[in-house]
């Protein structure tokens, strides 16, 4: 039999004191799924955590403490802590997106400072054979490969279009305006 938890909204939180479980419904417009996962994960050492989706845009979280038979106060405490963790996870997701640049800069510098340059032995063992980076501007592509005509003829034999007849500016081999750095 379910019963409300003192101080918590009855349409959101319900406890089953007999079974020692508590369940509450979360609106995913307020708390994204990633936050629900993040908060749920924190509890799996001391609770059995079950997630369900009773309706679109809703997630129901059921928590059953592993040890003992919790009373109403204990369940209230668990729900409260979960709610706080959920809020922290949701907000943290936003903050890290907003501050991504500075977080990346600091952690990159910290790692680079700690690691230092690789030794010759480490360079010798590094695998350079894989395609390790994307090349959206085609910088690593040779001019010949880039401008080879479709019929296989050598592109260097073709005159560049004149400014008077071409509606497009002559494209530089690098595809860009030069080094901005």
């Amino acid at each position, binding site marked *: 039999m379910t019963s409300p938890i003192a101080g918590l909204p009855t349409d959101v939180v319900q406890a089953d004191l007999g079974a020692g479980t508590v369940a509450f419904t979360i609106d995913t417009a307020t708390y994204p*799924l*990633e936050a629900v*996962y*993040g908060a*749920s*994960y924190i509890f*799996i050492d001391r609770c*059995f*955590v*079950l*997630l*369900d*989706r009773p309706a679109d845009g809703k*997630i129901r979280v059921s928590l*059953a403490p*592993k040890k003992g038979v919790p009373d109403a106060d204990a369940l209230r405490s668990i729900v409260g802590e979960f709610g706080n963790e959920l809020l922290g996870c949701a907000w943290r997701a936003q903050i890290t997106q907003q501050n991504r640049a500075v977080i990346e800069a600091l952690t990159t510098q910290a790692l680079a400072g700690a690691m230092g340059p690789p030794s010759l032995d480490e360079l010798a063992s590094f695998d350079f054979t894989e395609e390790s980076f994307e090349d959206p501007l085609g910088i690593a592509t040779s001019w010949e490969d880039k401008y080879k005509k479709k019929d296989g003829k050598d592109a260097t034999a073709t005159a560049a279009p004149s400014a008077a007849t071409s509606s497009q500016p002559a494209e530089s081999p690098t595809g860009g305006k030069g080094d901005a750095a």
Partner: protein
Amino acid sequence: MIELRLHRDLYRGTAVDEAVKVFARHGTFALSEQPEHWVVRVESKTPARERQLAGELGNYALGLTVKQGGAT
């Protein structure tokens, strides 16, 4: 017997499979699918043991799902 219903939007199917494998020797498990849920029937020697197995299996599947970046 406990029937554990794990929503497909929230649990990765492979995570559920893996969880069942991990706990296989502790009980009897039967897997089935419903339109919205992965269903795991859990049987063991006592109701308390079944509760514990179902709970730990659910946690394990959740943990794996989180580790793998979500249900999809």
